[in-house]
């Protein structure tokens, strides 16, 4: 192999890839862009809910990531690193547009009586439906319900229950205290539970 040429196989090796990126190798850059754009775009879309803004977030993320490539530490993969930068770019947008404020969703939250006892008794089937088609329909229904959550709650749910961020990481990214983050996550989950309950109780068919 030629000295300056890096082969495709070498770039499959994450360490080599990072080395080439740090050296400013155009081919390595293009490879990462092609490999990661789809995933990053999906992550950005989920948060900002607008195609053009999601594109901007991904582009911004790539540019700021590769400006900072020298500080990349191989504790995580390049993909995970880019994912985090993209999500932060998307959250910045949401914060700038003041879309993360907590809006009231009281009618979706659990009800307690004056003594602190729960009023509602939910019915959940023991198992997921057996048919894959039906499970797919449920997931579709659930996505529609997630979309109905106000941005501040949807974001909390995504960061914690999908991206797997810790309370502290999510709180920092959202610019709120950890305690507030927990409350927001709890409300988001409780609200989503209320929204998807009809499909469990058979009020809505999957």
């Amino acid at each position, binding site marked *: 192999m030629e000295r300056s040429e890096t082969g495709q196989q070498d770039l499959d090796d994450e360490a080599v890839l990072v080395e080439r990126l740090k050296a400013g190798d155009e081919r390595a850059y293009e490879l990462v862009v092609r490999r990661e*754009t789809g995933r990053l775009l999906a992550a950005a879309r989920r948060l900002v809910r607008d195609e053009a803004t999601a594109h901007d977030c991904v582009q911004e993320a790539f540019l700021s990531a590769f400006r900072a490539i020298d500080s990349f530490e191989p504790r995580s993969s390049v993909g995970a690193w880019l994912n985090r930068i993209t999500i932060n770019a998307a959250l910045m947008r949401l914060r700038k547009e003041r879309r993360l404020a907590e809006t009231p969703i009281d009618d979706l939250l659990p009800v*307690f009586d004056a003594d602190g*006892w729960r*009023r509602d008794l939910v019915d959940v089937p023991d198992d997921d439906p057996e048919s894959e088609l039906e499970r797919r329909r449920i997931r579709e229904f*659930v996505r529609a319900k997630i979309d109905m959550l106000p941005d501040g709650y949807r974001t909390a749910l995504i960061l914690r*229950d999908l991206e797997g961020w810790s309370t502290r990481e999510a709180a920092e990214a959202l610019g709120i205290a950890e305690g507030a983050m927990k409350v927001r996550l709890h409300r988001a989950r409780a609200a989503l*539970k209320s929204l998807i309950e009809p499909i469990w109780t058979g009020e809505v068919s999957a």
Partner: protein
Amino acid sequence: MSHTGSGGDGMDGRGGLWKRIRHWMSWGLHGAMTCEEFDRGLVDYLDGNLGPVAKRQIELHTVLCPHCHRYLRAYDRARRVAGEALREADEEALKTVPEDLVQAILAARRNGHEAAGDPG
């Protein structure tokens, strides 16, 4: 769903027994928690962040209170199915990556390089 106020305990058809259990939980059982306290502890409980005493209280409440027992199952199911639903959407999105975005990102980098020049 409507809450009829009086006789709320009877809505699960086991009002009498349930009332007695609640009474027992409030007064007879040292350290028992209400449903509302249970609710406030859920995030930490599911994260495994509770100390042994608080964890035991949550678990005891789950055993004694049918409302919270079912609530926890629904809550847990909701967060699991949310993750599955969103991941499925990702898989769909991966099938069609917009080439114009890829090109824009590559072009932005080339332009950035030209604009930045050589600092040395």
